[in-house]
């Protein structure tokens, strides 16, 4: 898997958020997007996740030299971010079964059980998500994002709402992701930066 970002520009009205962003990452590489508040880190993550389109430029996902069509990119990525919520009225199990079935994951019940245990949520599967604390919801978002073993994992603020134990667990999962895929994180935290092989600085314009 390879991601190529070419000349990305994002503009909201007259305000330019991103200007001429270029980078290329391949399997086994982790990239940290850094920059001050309002510099466009989240916007760039959303563009990479195909949630919003750049005003100019392009993001290309390639596998074995072939470009993955835009409408199929979602099959290859996992995303964790504060703006990405789970269905609050549904239980954790209902949420995860929904995502797993949507993604056609084989033997998804075992995979969910495995991840719920890893993230320390075993035994809380049948609680409504709204009954989870913010830290537990963050852990659950990691379960949802990793269900399909994505080749590309995008994480906006990896430590958000997590306690020390949660951070350790998540870091272990992120290091694992680095080994077999691509990890892209948006952060300003020095500890998070240790996960990254490369850094990309975006600046407020």
């Amino acid at each position, binding site marked *: 898997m390879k991601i190529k970002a070419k000349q990305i520009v994002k503009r909201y009205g007259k305000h330019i958020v991103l200007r001429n962003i270029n980078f290329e990452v391949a399997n086994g590489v982790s990239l940290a997007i850094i920059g001050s508040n309002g510099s466009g880190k989240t916007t760039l993550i*959303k563009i990479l*996740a*195909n*949630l919003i*389109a750049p005003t100019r430029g392009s993001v290309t996902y390639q596998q074995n030299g072939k470009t993955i069509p835009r*409408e199929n990119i*979602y099959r290859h*990525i996992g*995303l964790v971010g504060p*703006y*990405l*919520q*789970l*269905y*609050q*009225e*549904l239980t954790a199990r*209902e949420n995860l079964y*929904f*995502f797993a*079935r*949507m*993604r056609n994951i084989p033997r998804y019940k075992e995979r969910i059980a495995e991840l719920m245990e890893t993230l320390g949520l075993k035994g809380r599967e049948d609680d409504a998500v709204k009954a989870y604390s913010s830290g537990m919801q963050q852990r659950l978002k990691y379960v*949802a994002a990793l269900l399909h073993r994505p080749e590309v994992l995008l994480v906006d603020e990896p430590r958000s709402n997590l306690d020390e134990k949660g951070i350790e667990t998540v870091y272990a999962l992120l290091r694992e992701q680095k080994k077999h895929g691509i990890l892209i994180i948006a952060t300003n935290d020095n500890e998070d930066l240790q996960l990254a092989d490369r850094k990309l600085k975006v600046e407020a314009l």
Partner: protein
Amino acid sequence: MKQTYLILIKDLQQEFKTRYAINAILLFAIVTLSAVSFAIGTFTAGEQVLSALFWVILFFSSMSGLSHIFIREEETQTADTLKLVAKPVHIFLGKFIFNLLLLMVLEVVLVPLFIALMNFQLQSSAIFFLTLLIGNFGLAGGGTMVAAIISKASAKGALFTVLSFPILLPVLISGISATKKAAAESALSSAQSELQALFAYSVIIITASILLFDYVWNE
């Protein structure tokens, strides 16, 4: 189709737990029908007036609930989560079928109450129920698309009805005319042109919505 089915089931699960949309449309329908019933009182309203009143109540009741399917996704910040697991066409179809079911539940309650309270006599049940059935596809198709458009706006509630009205006007006009014929005549052929118009409109609005939804959902 599996993704469409899964999105529909997820929306039904959410609706069973919150009952937001179903409560909104049923309460609106019952309150409006009661108000109209008291307002008419002992006056005898003709078929034309009763047919128009029925569709006005049906239209505004559906307006109070059909938009919820997309507004909920935007307000709870789950729209992006859904984008990450489904193609736009499946999202539209899942939500369209949900709204279709919602309209059917509304009509199961509204139709017997309207007939009983307004003393509405039907000469042809076939015309009436066929009109409702085909009209539902048009209402749900147009309503779902407009709901997706307005879900990102700030004044969602008012905007939904205002934008839906011109788009759904053909359903209202044909529906009122066919319902009037259902009350006046017994032959199914007498409402052929209205039923054809409703059918054509429903096919066009659903096809156009499927083709355009990708742009609405991703912009």
